[in-house]
């Protein structure tokens, strides 16, 4: 028997280390017929903002080598709609429900977190200071220590349970940001969000995205994401949640060995809608093959 449980602290206990990445799994319901929504470590739902957002104009997507660019721009119906209409429909899942929170100003993050705090079935929020597809807020916070700290500290004051902060990889030294966020009260960090990228339709001589630039995700970025997780895991004491191009259990184990206590499956959900549950099963089998009875012992177990 393999014990896949992992405790990320501050009340966030996962039945296994596999979560869904925000914005790639809707509210879970979209995948009900394709994967087992009761058997995941956590479902991190779509980025939620204080007010409803229409997002960016179409086209919002371009396929790239081993990945894709998106420029969705946080389209969502706002936190009140989530609380009233969506949460009651998904709260019964046996997986943890985590809400990803975004905002244009610090006060947006705070008010959104404050309203979510009323939902006792939400053990954690993930504060997104790294969305590259919005004009204000988002990545602007996540690329400086001061901005990252400011958001984290403010949200920390109103959010009583586990506080995860999602970091941007578009920085010179991600360990600096991670330490700043840790010092401001985060209970864990998740990394990485997407890389700012761009693709050009050369025959039409124009960008593929309506916004010119967008967020790059998929296996193409995985080697960079693993490196950042490895660096951050050595730099902070709080748990690190790894993501960036994980397509399967093998990829997930790269992050885990590099120091991630848990992982998020993102873009893979678009290609293999059953990627999450298959990753859980692969990790369980891996542990069995390697005689690991307690998953937590393999976190950061990379040999040098």
């Amino acid at each position: 028997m393999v014990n896949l449980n992992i405790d990320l602290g501050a009340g966030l206990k996962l039945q296994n280390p596999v979560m869904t990445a925000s914005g790639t799994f809707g509210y879970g319901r979209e995948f009900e017929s394709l994967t087992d929504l009761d058997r995941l470590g956590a479902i991190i739902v779509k980025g939620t903002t204080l007010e409803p957002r229409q997002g960016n104009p179409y086209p919002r997507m371009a396929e790239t080598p081993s990945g894709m660019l998106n420029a969705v721009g946080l389209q969502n119906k706002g936190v009140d709609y989530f609380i009233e209409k969506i949460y009651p429909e998904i709260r019964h899942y046996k997986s943890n429900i985590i809400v990803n929170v975004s905002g244009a100003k610090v006060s947006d993050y705070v008010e959104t977190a404050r309203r979510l705090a009323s939902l006792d079935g939400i053990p954690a929020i993930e504060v997104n200071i790294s969305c590259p597809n919005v004009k204000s807020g988002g990545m602007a916070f996540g690329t400086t220590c001061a901005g990252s700290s400011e958001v984290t500290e403010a949200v920390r004051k109103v959010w009583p349970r586990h506080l995860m902060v999602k970091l941007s990889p578009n920085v010179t030294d991600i360990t600096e940001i991670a330490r700043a966020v840790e010092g401001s009260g985060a209970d864990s960090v998740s990394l990485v969000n997407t890389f700012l990228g761009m693709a050009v339709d050369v025959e039409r001589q124009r960008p593929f995205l309506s916004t010119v630039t967008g967020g790059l995700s998929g296996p193409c970025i995985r080697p960079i994401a693993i490196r950042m997780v490895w660096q951050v895991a050595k730099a902070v004491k709080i748990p690190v949640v790894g993501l960036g191009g994980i397509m399967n259990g093998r990829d997930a184990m790269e992050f885990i060995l590099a120091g991630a206590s848990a992982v998020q499956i993102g873009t893979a959900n678009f290609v293999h809608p059953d990627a999450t549950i298959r990753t859980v099963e692969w990790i369980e089998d891996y542990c069995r093959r390697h005689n690991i009875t307690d998953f937590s012992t393999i976190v950061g177990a990379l040999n040098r």
Partner: protein
Amino acid sequence: MNKPLLIEFEVTCVDRSGATARLTLEPVGGVTMPMPAPGQFVNILVEHAHNTFLRRPISVNFAEPGSLMLMVKEAGEGTAVLVNSLPGDRYNILMPLGHGFTLPEKPEKCLLIGGGVGVAPLLYLGECLRQRGVEPVFVLGARNRKELDWQLPDFEKIGKTFVATEDGSLGTKGFVTQCPALDLEADRWYVCGPMPMMKAVAAAARKRNVECEVSLENKMACGLGACLCCVEDTADSGNVCTCTEGPVFNLNRLKW
């Protein structure tokens, strides 16, 4: 509506004409295929293409219990692999997806207007209409005879079929909008084809004040309403997912 499933299919037959192929596929291992509604699509994984990452959305050309037909036109590396499929090749398919055409409650006069590879979903729609007692009339556009004639017998089996080709090598010379068949009395138009053709047909529909549904081909990733990439800006709800609220939209919802 049937919930989407991941199903392993095997190619049993390939009909090819130029850069277009019609694949007939059957589920592997006795799995039951959920029947798609007309206008729905599938999202197919192409594993043996070097530079293809996402699945390829393809509309349902025809379906019978246990058998699925997809019409694929080569447009890149992924579709090239599909077009060059051989019997015995296997594909992992996510299906059925999306919101299809609205079938009339009672028999109505329906015109099914398609262009290029956009004629594909109209075949299955025509058959479903016929089974409901509607006599579908097809108006099909193509660049030339070669593009269309190999598919014509299938349409003609189902309903009266008018053709327009750009070079005049078959039927009326010109675009479908120039085809006299558009003047036939109709309660409802169903449209699928390249964007300029659909916009022209939509304009004609507006002029005639006929109920009109169009099938969009917005670029998409997941096909499940999760990635929010394929949005269409609607008059009533702003950006909505083409993959779940569409691909078929009533013209009145669109800001065309």
